[in-house]
């Protein structure tokens, strides 16, 4: 069950990245036809990010202390000391960016070049930061794995 919570967190994180890339590509070709889709996808990206944070936050507060203890006793303590500590705070900025995306996407992107530029910048930062955070998550999971492997060898 705890693994499902964790995987749901990752799933929504990836969904946020994918939808934001969709918004980015659609905005590059913005016109009256795809404007509603851009707006809906930007709202979806924000929703996915909020769901990812809620699932991840719940898991972090309730279940992570056990993993943290394992990581700190293992050969990769930096998986917590650097990667988790950084991840849990960078993700707050990702939440703000994803929440901001539908606000900027509500402008008339078909007729407003400057609004398109703003959306493109925000929609470019989200996947970059998101992928970085996904990588952090992978290293944290590996921190647990190498600690458990070291215990059994």
């Amino acid at each position, binding site marked *: 069950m705890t693994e499902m919570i964790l995987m749901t967190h990752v799933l929504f994180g990836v969904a946020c990245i994918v939808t934001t890339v969709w918004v980015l590509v659609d905005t590059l070709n913005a016109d009256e036809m795809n404007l509603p889709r851009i707006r809906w996808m930007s709202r979806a990206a924000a929703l996915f990010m909020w769901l990812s944070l809620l699932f991840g936050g719940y898991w*972090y507060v309730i279940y992570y202390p056990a993993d943290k203890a394992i990581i700190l006793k293992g050969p990769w303590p930096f998986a917590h000391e*650097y990667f988790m500590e950084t991840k849990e705070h960078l993700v707050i*900025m990702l939440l703000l960016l994803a929440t901001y995306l539908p*606000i900027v996407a*509500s402008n008339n992107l078909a*007729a407003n*070049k*400057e609004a398109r530029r703003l959306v493109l*910048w925000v929609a470019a930062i989200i996947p970059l930061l998101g992928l970085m955070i996904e990588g952090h998550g992978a290293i944290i999971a590996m921190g647990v794995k190498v600690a458990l492997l070291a215990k059994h060898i």
Partner: protein
Amino acid sequence: MENDTVSKYSVSFGLSLALSSVANALLVIAKEKSPAVQAGMQKLTGHHWITHVAIILVLFAAFGWLFANAKGGQGLTMPVNRLIKTIVAGVLTAGFVIVGFYLIAD
């Protein structure tokens, strides 16, 4: 027909995003360097990270609302180019402060 202005909420919440990101980084340093701050944050919600997220979200909403209602309800205005630079600078500064802090200072 092309226009080049964005909604007042795009400007106000964009500025709020930059400001809240920097506040996020400063709060990281404050709670990691001061056990009293961390204990206070822990006490408020039961976990320092929940309090941290709540503070930043409240700041984001409050700054955004404040900037949107500035100048008699017209909201703050700024060229989009400068708004983009402010957002990127805020996010990058906060990111480097957080990464640098855990990499070097902590």
